[in-house]
């Protein structure tokens, strides 16, 4: 489940490649590793231009962080380890995808909670309203046709 979700995140993050105009020399030679590095970068917030991801931003700090990500990807570290390294220095703020923990339960649970509340409202409303009469049976329908003729 988690792996599927992680793959979804990677795929969702790739729903539109967005990069800064920086040094083409930054990019890794291996395209698979480069894509992985980009996916990680797109999950981190640039702290200077705070409304871009590290991958998109032109800021110096973003460039440094991109370089660090690529070094660590080449060194074989996992996505989790790299993001943990970043979080250890900059806190949860750098994560564009908030961690799933006790204090973000309401956040991640929002879709389910919203649907639940919506469903509850609908059910409550239906219970209040007198229900529609049941559909006619075949015999009743025949009788109705007779009466109407």
């Amino acid at each position, binding site marked *: 489940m988690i792996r599927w979700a992680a793959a979804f995140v990677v795929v969702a993050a790739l729903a*539109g490649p967005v990069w800064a105009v920086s040094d083409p020399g930054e990019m890794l030679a291996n395209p698979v590793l480069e894509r992985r590095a980009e996916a990680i970068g797109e999950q981190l917030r640039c702290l200077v231009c705070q409304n871009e991801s590290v991958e998109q931003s032109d800021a110096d700090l973003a460039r440094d962080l991109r370089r660090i990500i690529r070094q660590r990807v080449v060194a074989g570290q996992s996505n989790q380890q790299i993001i943990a390294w970043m979080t250890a220095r900059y806190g949860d703020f750098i994560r*564009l995808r908030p961690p799933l923990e006790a204090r973000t339960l309401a*956040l991640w649970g929002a879709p389910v909670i919203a649907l639940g509340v919506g469903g509850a409202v609908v059910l409550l409303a239906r219970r209040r309203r007198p229900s529609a009469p049941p559909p006619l049976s075949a015999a009743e329908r025949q009788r109705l046709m007779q009466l109407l003729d």
Partner: protein
Amino acid sequence: MTPELGHFALALAVAIAAAQAVLPLMGAHNRDARMMAAAPALAVGHLIALATSFGCLVWSGVVDDFSVFNVAENSSSTEPLVYRITGTWGNHEGSILLWCLILACCGCAVAAFGRNLPSSLRARVIGVLGFTSAGFLLYALTVSNPFLRVWPPPMDGQNINPLLQDPGLAIHPPVLYAGYVGFAIPFAFAIAALLEGRVDAAWGRWVRPWALGAWCLLTGGIALGSWWAYYELGWGGFWFWDPVENASLLPWLAGTALLHSAIVVEKREALKTWTVLLAIGTFSLSLCGTFMVRSGILNSVHSFASAPTRGVFILVLLAIVIGGSLLLFAMRAPVLAASGIFAPVSREGALVLNNVLLCSICAVVLTGTTYPLIAALLFNAALSVGPPYFHLTVVPLLVPLFAAMSVGPTLPWKRADLLPALLRLWWAAALAALVGIAVEAGLGRAFAAGGFAAAAWLITGAFAELVERVRLFRVPLAVTRARAAAQPLSVWGAAVAHAGMGITVAGIAGMSLATSTIVSVAPGSTVRLGGYEWTLLGLHDAPGPDYTARVADLRVTRDGRQVAMFHPSRRAFTQQQQTVSDTAIETNLVRDLYAVMGDERNGQVVLRLHVNYLAPWIWLGALVMAAGGGLSLADRRLRVGAPARRSAATVPA
């Protein structure tokens, strides 16, 4: 002199708006025909005063009157005339004035086009609009005054942010604000109905055109904003789920739910409470969104330089408007008589599902946008919520919504059988499955496959109701054609609008397949990308009115044939000491060629090149959606009791 005139006109507008608030509402309460009849005149007077005030502000910008602090801060003499005019609303004070101006236009629109409304309802609607206007005008006059002077006047203005000197900026705010503020009219209708104590089919029919009009404008405004970010900011994306973007999406979601809910009130007199609440909620979200971003408590790229003290005034104003209307709702809504009964599986049922899903998406986006604030307040933590969160939470809710979008309109009212309805759509489902499988097999990209399948389902399913109604392939073609011509425009409108959504989804799916590269090249070299050859022909300088630009000449060819010749550039603005990249985009409406210029080093220049497949469809789809809304608006049935003059086309503000 002109600023003084503007200032005076603003104060006058406050007074007239206050009168517009009090007199008609009192008149409706006491059934005083004369006071109620004063409403339209007051609305017109209000508009004239405010238009004068706004005109004076624009004039001050045009003639470079730097003694006006607002002009000195945001304009400059080297700025082209167009941007001096449009820069009026590129800053906080000017944009508030624009907001108020549009609100005044709303009052006038109701006065002009609402002659068929019962006088008490019309008086109440205009009164509520006046009340809201008076509040914001008071804000503009006291805490956020655009006519403040600076003495001695500086020699030149400080020039607006070079990023904002763009034709997109000229139209994006007015269209967007027209959408935001346009929902004040359904809001006023809701309050008027609650005051009156009655919501009926006629009310539903009156509210819908105004909600539709505002929705069309808001759709346009959001699309313009997204398109502007795409071609101006140059990061190759079009939506970052930034708080200010979400602030425009929230009323759009609630407004879409309102539109659909109002249909049920009109046709079946059911869902009254929900519709009234949505009408209040949509405008409340408009208000909250705009002002939350301006107050500075949100971390957003769209920050105006605002002070927390202004935030307090706005908060009090919002508390009165939103709190007051929700209190009225709590008191009066329970006595609204519900009538229409319907089975869970029916068109009403589908619209209820639509409501629940849209409101859930709205709730999720609201939660994500405000969670950093909640975390700061409750846990003293610095959290941030970005695109990955929204993709993971909104997309799963979109799946049932898209499924229902094509099925719902084919269901009959009151009671329906689900299985026959689903079977009738077999062709849409088959096409969607085919497309999805083809894309997955051919390209291996799951997101794009899902997206294209959804788009196929939406576009073909959009016309399902029409196909049913004209009995396509089941009766002779001539009969079909006659039936098609006889269909009310709102049926065509709905089909076109739903198809438009499908086009946008296709655009987003196509964008996910985009290829790009960053290269460092010298003039004369060629790069291969996306099946095209991109050749850098040369670099040269080009001066502009307040900048100097370095321009790259790029030629794109395919199989030897020239496809495009375009010129990304970097502009260095002398006064602001800022360098901005000017993205070059070459579109053939099916794919975009996108180029951004970076630094130059040792005779080589860094270029980022993209081939964005189907990107134009994202915004074309939004245009089609708005066109569908427009078609629905043109439906004769919506102009109930319209004056006998044939030429009257009821398109609200």
